[in-house]
């Protein structure tokens, strides 16, 4: 049995019939074809699949596609606007916050929500907030620096 789902991803509307057991991450990667969202584990530890779902950072390996029916989703592909990198993306580039790049999309979207909640986070807070995202390359040092850079360069909220 398949069920209809409809959602907006990066401003574009998608509708498909999917198996109820299909995970949102597989929907995004395999059905929609946006492969920037990664799968690094099968127990919701690594955070490589983090997306924004209705404004919340969500590990989409832990959500069924059918649960996201009607949702508004942003993936890493949708973060840069009109060819302009988001300050968090820019921060990761400036501060060498990535090496192999696999955890990076999830890190960036996790940082997105972090900076919405805490526009001027301390180092300690950044480290604590990154608890749901694993990186094996950077030792986190430059990821912390990247998020600090982004915090300094985020446009002021209206």
């Amino acid at each position, binding site marked *: 049995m398949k069920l209809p789902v409809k959602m907006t991803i990066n401003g574009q509307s998608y509708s498909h019939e999917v198996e109820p057991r299909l995970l949102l991450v597989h929907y995004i990667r395999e059905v929609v074809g946006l492969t920037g969202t990664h799968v690094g584990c099968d127990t919701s530890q690594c955070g490589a699949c983090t997306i924004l779902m209705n404004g919340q950072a969500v590990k989409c390996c832990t959500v069924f596609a059918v649960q996201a029916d009607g949702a508004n989703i942003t993936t890493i592909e949708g973060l840069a606007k009109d060819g302009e990198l988001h300050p968090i993306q820019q921060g990761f580039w400036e501060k060498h916050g990535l090496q192999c790049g696999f955890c990076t999309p999830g890190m960036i979207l996790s940082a997105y929500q972090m900076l919405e909640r805490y526009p001027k986070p301390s180092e300690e807070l950044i480290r604590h907030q990154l608890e749901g995202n694993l990186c094996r*390359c950077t030792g986190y040092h430059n990821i912390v620096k990247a998020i600090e850079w982004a915090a300094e360069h985020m446009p002021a909220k209206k």
Partner: protein
Amino acid sequence: MATVASDRLFGKSIKRREDPRFITGRGQYVDDLKLPGMTYAAFVRSPHAHAKIRKIDTAAAARHPGVVAIYTGKDMAGVNSLPCGWDLRKEKNIPGVMQDLAIVPHMPLTSDAARHVGDPVAIVIADSHEAAVDAAEKVQVDWEPLPSVTITEKAAGAGAPKLHDGAPGNVAFKWEIGDRAATDAAFNSAPVKVKKRIVNQRLVANAMEPRACVARYDDATGELTLWVTSQNPHVHRLLMCAFVLGIPEHKVRVIAPDVGGGFGSKIFLYNEEVVCSWASRKLKRPVRWTSSRSEAYLTDAHGRDHVTDAELALSNDGKMLGLRVKTTANLGAYLSTFAPAVPTFLYGTLLNGVYAIPAIHCEVTGVFSNTTAVDAYRGAGRPEACYVLERIVEAGARAAKMDVGELRKKNFIPKFSGAFQTQVAVVYDSGDYGAAWDRMLQMLDYKKFRAEQEAARKQGRLLGIGFSAYIEACSIAPSKLVGALGAGAGLYESGKVRVHPTGGVTVYTGSHSHGQGHETTFAQIVADKLGIPIEQVEIVHGDTGSIPFGMGTYGSRSASVGGTAILMSLNKVIEKGKKIAAHLLEASPSDIDFTGGQFQVKGAPSKAVPFGAVSLTAYVPHKYPEGLEPGLEETSFYDPSNFCFPFGAHACVVEVERETGKVRILRYLAVDDVGNVINPMIVDGMVHGGIAQGVGQALCEGAVYDGQSGQLLTGTMMDYALPKADMLPMYETDRTVTPTPVNPMGIKGAGETGTIASPPAVMNAVVDALAPLGVDHIEEMPLSAERVWKIIQGAKSAR
């Protein structure tokens, strides 16, 4: 006229050129690939640590909707064992062999017995991933469970169940290095001796991207393309074609696109990529397999797993007199690609460390057990050597009642360049160990720390410091030398430079970047050498279809070996360019200089042609030297004359929470000497990541098997604890620079230093913190809060 880069880029922290695709989600990893007609594979794996296969019934699974094919080992007639690429045998005159390597079969799909949990026995291929996984559950295997052994010290013990007919007593090999008699003599007369059991636990690499492959056989051309998460696509191709499948190499193309970290685990030829390639040829359809993380824990080669008795002999005033090491190395159920090299030539040869130790002897027994195969993991043998040495050195200092820093300083090999002959075969290239040490102490302010520690102890706080003065062998490796030691391969690297008519340059490197940033660092070398803007340089890696045979990336060899191969080709391009320029300028080639992107007549700077004009002439050879071939493209293979030996001094400051046993890292300092550095930002990043992995080993990581059932207890990321951001500090790093004389750029290698240096620094720090409780040694890692709490309780009750 072509634009000319104004500044030298070598040594500059320029931003990475590969990052834009990664930060926008447009990296192309293997699992991102979709091909028409794709099929999806799932493997049926052993749930037992050790079991005979009586029968495999695939009938029900084959009826599952969407299933395309199911194969077991019996279907793969004519397919050979996965090869082991390192042969430790006396008949091959391999030095140090005491008992020949037992070369045991490792079939892509085992059909007689499973020897570890996760051992694959069948592949199920279907139209969708879901159908493949569902059908795999319907494959019925009639198992006859057998007793298993997973524990390193028990694997070769009396009564341990036998894994392989060809390996009596589960001994894979026995090997030694150093001078046994001289070492025994040193111990016989030494006034101070210390002996400790030191365990280097089993680890899992945990690259964030799980392994994956897509195999596509095109029966129209007879070509097989394999996209695979590989650190060395040519090695994958060679091993798979020549040794396992017996298919022609020139009909196989291996592509390693963006790869999400390797740390050694993606060097090796694995069962799954071989079986998918074989199946694709059979089905004439693409076959894709992506490891789940749980499968990764069961099947990615594990690392370390040594149990060692180490002894240090000292004079009364703290001079090292002898080192004796006896290690049991657990190799797992099968011999992985380079497994025998790791606990032997990559381990024993590093036991001289940075110290002038007059006598060393090391003996290693490799054993089989019902566990996942063990092979190189970041550092590979060198972390194990550093760990043994730096732990026993601090234990020795305590036995000699000396400061751990003073004892080290007393024994450092004095500054040298060119050659230092160790007691364990290798010859160091250059070193100034005291300088790195002194810089680290200066950053630390050691005296101040000891005063703070004294004050903290009076308040009952458990503050500690630990050090690690390490050496490692990089720039792997001179082919002749490793051949004499048992390697089945050469360890040179290739670099091809293709200059395009309009002056742009594409470089094809046999090195593979899976996080190392070669697209940036190699381009820095090229832009400098040719005097062209870096935007005109493209680095291509990871495709056997376009790159000359290369050995790939591991052993911190890319910049020093791969980079040198590129440099050699650049020199050839310039030499040829001089001939073309001389013709254009009506001068002799010997009178042409090449600087700042200009070929010019010596002493007459106005008589010059830019690089772009020469490249255009090479492809439009109207006005051209007689007898010179058109075109501007050069290929080089660089085979290093020696290893390079980076070194450094690390320090870790910890506080242990007395009530809970929780270890908190307050400071981590690293002074590394990796020779000359192309891009300091990238080197710093690798050092950071390496430290984190080493801290992970010391504080939280460890692959644990149940001693009874042989099940892997740490089989998911929920159970295997990886270091997280909140358990790590900002690292305080610096460098000293002692260029190597081995290669022209003076680069030693930087990819593994952090992982090598940090575990003993952290462990030593915790021992120091617990010293007031009477603790003078801790045998095992990781130092979970529970383990430390137990040590604290044990120390209390002992008092």
